[in-house]
């Protein structure tokens, strides 16, 4: 019964990779290797389905289709976690970009003339101007 430790280890690895360095060259290299292995396995299972069944029974899964299902589920979780991390990363970048645009255009506009506040003692003649831009 290898299947249980195999599945658990796969999930742990996904978790670890997801939590640690994301977006680095190393991570994306690992991702490519994982994809490569996945495609090799896919082609192999198409060409030699009976061997997939043998592997499956060797590691204690039963039928080859069951093994494929497990691999597919792991692959799906892998994809989900990576996509989530990627989205978060993009969100941060977009926020930085939008902030830069907002701040830059705020500094370009002429300083707003202070509207007379309701109480006369509150004129704001010293409203800092945006000259330094």
């Amino acid at each position, binding site marked *: 019964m290898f299947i249980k430790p195999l599945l658990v280890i796969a999930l742990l690895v996904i978790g670890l990779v997801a*939590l640690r360095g*994301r977006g680095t060259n190393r991570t994306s290299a690992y991702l490519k290797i994982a994809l490569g292995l996945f495609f090799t396995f896919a082609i192999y299972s198409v060409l030699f389905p009976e061997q997939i069944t043998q592997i499956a029974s060797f590691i204690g899964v039963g039928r080859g289709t069951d093994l494929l299902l497990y691999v597919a589920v792991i692959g799906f979780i892998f994809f989900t976690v990576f996509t989530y*991390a990627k989205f*978060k990363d993009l*969100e*941060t970048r*977009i*926020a930085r970009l*939008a*902030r830069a*645009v*907002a*701040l830059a*255009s*705020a500094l370009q506009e002429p*300083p*707003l003339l*202070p*509207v007379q*506040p*309701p*109480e006369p*003692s*509150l004129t*704001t003649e*010293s*409203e*800092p101007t945006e000259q*330094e831009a």
Partner: protein
Amino acid sequence: MTDQRDVWLVVPMYNETQVVRDVILRARRTFPNVVCVDDGSQDSSAAEAAAAGAVVVRHPINLGQGAALQTGIEYARNRPGARYLVTFDADGQHNADDVSRMIARLRTEPLDVVLGTRFQGNTGHIPLLKRLVLRTVVMVSPRAHRLKLSDSHNGLRAMTVEAARRINLQSNGMAHADEFVDIVDRARMRVAEEPVTINYTDYSMSKGQSLLNGVNIVVDSAVRRRS
């Protein structure tokens, strides 16, 4: 009245046309410097805020309240002469008098940050369910506990400009309150709480966070800590 021209109010704003002009006019009686961060509103909030005399910084797209706060903080802390920053809500739930007391403490006491709390003094005006949830949030947060905070999700916060320079909120959405406390704790800033009154009007209640949003906050915070 003390001269408050070294204070900047940072007001994140999203679709607040109805009330924002009034809120800013009232706040500016005491605090002339107000920067409104318009978080991509579809209504005329930006024009209203500008008419009330606030500097308006516009996000080209909607990013979320945390992002708007960060933008406002970055704008305000780079103003010449700015010494104190205050985060202030656009929906009229905060009072300038409370801000005055918080700023007075920053001026006189050795503090970096003063957080508003709803849970000192009379809590009768806070809706019961809200009270329970906010109390629970504080109890389960180790940092809030360590800093002896009674209310970690209050939008009213005052800080010195030096403290503001260390604030870099990454949570765009609503998890920024936790993140703020995190940053304050990690940087070992000196924090105090000041009791404040929140005006729970129908308007602010309808604009405020629904309790279901707590789910988002918890998950976002958990993910952020690990990243």
